[in-house]
């Protein structure tokens, strides 16, 4: 009996510290990743990296300005698709829809959210690249936009639903129509949340590589219009990382640091926004 108690106590302590170790390992993975990228990337970051085009292999220097610009262009197009569809879709299911259509939209959104990014790339290829007969920033931006829709919709829906009923009833009671209530009361009340949802969705698709490889493809020059192959930050990291050149490897580290820095900053910023909002709510 005594032995059994000792054994149970030992097992308790052992297994509980094991779960702590699991948490520690997982959490430390992030710091290892951040630290290692900073260690390898920071030395290669200088001003020309952000402003210059790549130089031919063998020459040192050069930058990835074309990829930063290309990414920005495609993200703008993605936002132009993802934000209106996601936000208005969320308003529809949160405010107007009866249960069955709301379920259908939510189901389709979840389905879209689960589609692997490479398959979204195939979809953009068949929809746009096949019809235009060449790779373009349109196709890349379209793929990213499609990926943004479910992310924005589901979180915006939550934030819209979190707006207290009393606010809506107050607006209706002073004679505002439903659409006016939504536009002047509900959306402003949920604006902080909607903003964080948009930022997080942008940060997420900014790092997507797979859907861009065969839609936007890549380029070594300044992108002119939307209608030609365009480089992007993640695809440049990929191409440089698998290349055999040391100089490109160094640039891949630096570009990786830029991309990850962007993602981390956006995530920290949105968390601060949300924390302040909940603190004010109390």
């Amino acid at each position, binding site marked *: 009996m005594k032995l059994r108690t000792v054994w*149970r106590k030992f*097992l*308790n302590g052992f297994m*509980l510290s094991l*779960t702590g170790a*699991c*948490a520690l*390992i*997982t*959490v430390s*993975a*992030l710091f290892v*990743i951040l630290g290692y990228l900073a260690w390898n990337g920071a030395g290669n970051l200088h001003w020309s990296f952000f402003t210059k085009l790549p130089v031919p292999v063998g020459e040192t220097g050069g930058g990835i300005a074309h990829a930063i610009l290309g990414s920005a262009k495609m993200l703008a197009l993605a936002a132009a698709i993802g934000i209106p*569809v996601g936000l*208005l*879709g969320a*308003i*529809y*299911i949160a405010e*107007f829809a*009866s249960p069955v259509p709301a379920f*259908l*939209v939510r189901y389709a*959104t979840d*389905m*879209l959210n*689960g*589609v*692997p*990014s*490479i*398959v979204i*790339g*195939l*979809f953009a*290829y*068949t929809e746009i690249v096949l019809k235009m007969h060449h790779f373009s920033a349109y196709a890349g931006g379209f793929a990213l936009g499609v990926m943004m829709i479910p992310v924005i*919709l589901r979180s915006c829906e939550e934030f819209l639903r979190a707006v207290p009923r009393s606010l*809506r009833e107050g607006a209706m009671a002073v004679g505002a*129509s*439903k*659409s*006016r209530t939504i*536009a002047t009361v509900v959306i402003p009340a949920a604006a902080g949340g909607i903003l964080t949802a948009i930022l997080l969705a942008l940060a997420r698709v900014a*790092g997507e*590589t*797979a859907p861009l*490889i*065969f839609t936007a493809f890549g380029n070594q020059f300044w992108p002119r219009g939307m209608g030609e192959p365009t480089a992007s930050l993640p695809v440049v*990291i*990929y191409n440089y*990382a*698998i290349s055999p050149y040391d100089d490109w490897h160094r640039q*891949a580290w630096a570009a*990786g640091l830029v*991309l*990850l820095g962007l*993602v*981390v900053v956006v*995530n920290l910023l949105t968390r601060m926004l949300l924390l302040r909002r909940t603190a004010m709510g109390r």
Partner: protein
Amino acid sequence: MGTHPTFAGPAGLKSAGPASWSRSLLRRLRNGDEVAHLITLIFAASILLVTAMVVYQLWIHSAESRAHFGWNFFHTSIWDPVFDKFGAWPFIYGTLVTTGVALLIAVPLGLGAAIFLSELAPPKLSSSLSFVIDLLAAVPSVIYGLLAIFTLVPLMSGTIQPFLKRTLGFLPFFQGPAYGYGFLTAGIVLAVMIVPFIISVSREVLLAVPRDQREAALGLGATRWETTWKVVVPHARTGILGSVFLSMARALGETMAVTMVIGNAPKVSASLFSQGYTIAAVIANEFTEATGGLHVSALIELGLVLFLLTFVLNGLARLLIVLTSRRGAGVANT
């Protein structure tokens, strides 16, 4: 929320004459509710359309390959674009093996961490750690690949694989030359990538287990660990299984990091040291270079396979998670 205060409804419209009908339509348009409803409906419907189009495009563009190879596509192993022979088995095998390795590592690790976060850590610590884990989920796939190529691959070929060979080399899984690139490395990278999903979903379903369950077990004299392992975890097991399916779907569709470390050779080998290929990786590598219609079609059929696999897994995962959260609520109410 559901009814409109100023709107008579369609039944009232029919009985009125055409003049009053147009007047009421005008009033309703000016009112804005119907317009807003219609506009948001159109955008919401476009999501249904996009989702349907994904399936439709994959289906029609893979028609040539489906007609040409039929079911043989799935169990033949020769992938030769020059002679237009396409068998997908090496890619399906590679996808399943890497996903399996990833789950073997990620499930115990993730479940352990989730138990720590939900049962042991004080709420403040738990919420900050969860944020760090969410951040881990936000790291782009290509960054994992970049790190893996330059750190994990040399580590695997120099230290870990020789060590495994010395100690467990009698098993068929740990034989052959240690390249560094291969199934095992890809599986490890995938494990790191899917752990955050297992943790965040499992933590939520564990937290949803009613308090009185824990208190009853502790009151009977169970230790903290016995309470967790024999009461809390079984109560949440469907939801945990859901999180496993969810992360499995992620692992199957993961492209960049795997492409960068698996070696990209269409081989079927029992050894985890062997280089391999996955469905997503072959699409990423060959799609831009595919010239023949049949090659493109075969790659799109692979995309269709990937879509169907993840669709089924995601559906199962959602069902299981909904089931647990409902059951948890039901128990809490009674």
